[in-house]
């Protein structure tokens, strides 16, 4: 557990000292959301109707952006080499890394989402929005890190990352915006929201194991 906490602390500290994704990612999120009224027109009614999808797509893109560096830096400076020599399982490192990454890159998006929802005229209580965006952003990290580990030794990694990760994100997008759509219409939205949580329950134990295998594969 000490090991887990140490990596978690290290990653969060590094992010703070390296300019802080936790500040510029919500800004990027806001920027994408700003593009939609500019592109689609300022008429509030169509914006309110499309707001669930717009928010999910903007969150998806904002989650995609910082993924490339998730393991690349640790691979480059030899951290993963040393971790492989240690008796601790690599999947524990991956789990800590995932949590740290969500805290600096996912949680800030979750925090600003209610404000953006209000700007688009989405009339849903913030707690309901969080019930969708918390599992969705964690899933973006969990699934995205597999893609991040796949491209570690690849050329043109960043373009590749989007091509690999986005198809895997589709179920999250569908259930997330589906749940918000139903909430906005005043219908029971438990079904799709629970699918997100079920996906989280499945991905949480499985994806760190897969990513650890991939990192090991990249090292030998």
């Amino acid at each position, binding site marked *: 557990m000490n090991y887990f906490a140490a990596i978690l602390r290290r990653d969060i500290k590094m992010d703070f000292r390296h300019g802080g994704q936790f500040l510029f990612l919500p800004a990027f999120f806001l920027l994408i959301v700003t593009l939609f009224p500019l592109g689609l027109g300022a008429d509030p009614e169509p914006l309110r109707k499309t707001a669930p999808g717009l928010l999910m797509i903007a969150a998806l893109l904002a989650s995609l952006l910082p993924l490339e560096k998730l393991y690349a830096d640790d691979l480059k400076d030899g951290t993963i080499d040393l971790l492989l020599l240690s008796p601790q399982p690599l999947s524990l490192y991956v789990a800590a890394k995932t949590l740290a990454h969500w805290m600096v890159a996912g949680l800030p998006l979750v925090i600003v989402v209610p404000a953006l929802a209000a700007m688009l005229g989405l009339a849903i209580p913030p707690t309901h929005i969080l019930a969708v965006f918390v599992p969705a952003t964690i899933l973006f990290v969990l699934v995205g890190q597999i893609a991040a580990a796949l*491209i570690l030794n690849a050329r043109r990694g960043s373009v590749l990352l989007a091509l690999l990760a986005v198809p895997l994100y589709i179920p999250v997008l569908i259930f997330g915006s589906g749940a918000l759509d139903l909430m906005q219409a005043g219908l029971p939205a438990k079904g799709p929201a629970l699918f997100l949580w079920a996906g989280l329950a499945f991905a949480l134990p499985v994806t760190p194991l897969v990513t650890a295998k991939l990192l090991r*594969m990249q090292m030998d």
Partner: protein
Amino acid sequence: MHKYANPKKYKALSKYILTASLGLALALLGWGLYLALIASPPDYQQSETVRIMYIHVPAAWLSMFIYASMTVAAIVLTIWRHTLAGFYIRAAAPIGACFTAACLISGALWGQPTWGTWWVWDARLTSVLILFFLYLGAIALSNAYDNPDKGNQATAWLVIVGSVNLPIIKFSVDWWNTLHQPASLTSFSRMAAPGIHHDMLVPLLVMAGGFLCLYVVLVILRLDNEIAARKIHVLRLKAING
């Protein structure tokens, strides 16, 4: 199975399979095309355009079959480090992408006269399109590595993750479609309840058999290329390292 990890032993076997499946492919496709284009009756609703089905449906079947076979190869590669399985994934992915594209394009050409539109955001169409992107990802990843072995292993993992995700994507897309758009254009009744008439089923199955044999021919040719390319790679490394 492990015996054929040796390219020489594999080649001794594949030579015969290649000849046999080439002959079979020519025969089945010739017979199938005759049945599909000339001998089979036009549909009572769609008239002659139904003949697109004999290309469209086998291509759709193969697009799924090839991904499934790549998944098996990916598991074999990850567990046993079977060299040939890695070559197979590389060889099969572009062919699978082509069959998926053929399915999408023939579907669009069929949709125009029958549905009145080239494309609808229907659950089936959308999930085939996503399958196409999964193929593109596999092709791009396998070509992005300097070390071909590592590229194959990474692609194998991508294929495995994709195959776990594919049913989830399919399910979510089905759900999405039923939520947003009630079944208006999606009456895929041609395959459903009343079944398909014998006169159309036979050419369809013959064409599917022909497509499958064609795929075997293409994949063996590409596998031979992969093996040759690997030999060149190794020879070059030897020449450099002395």
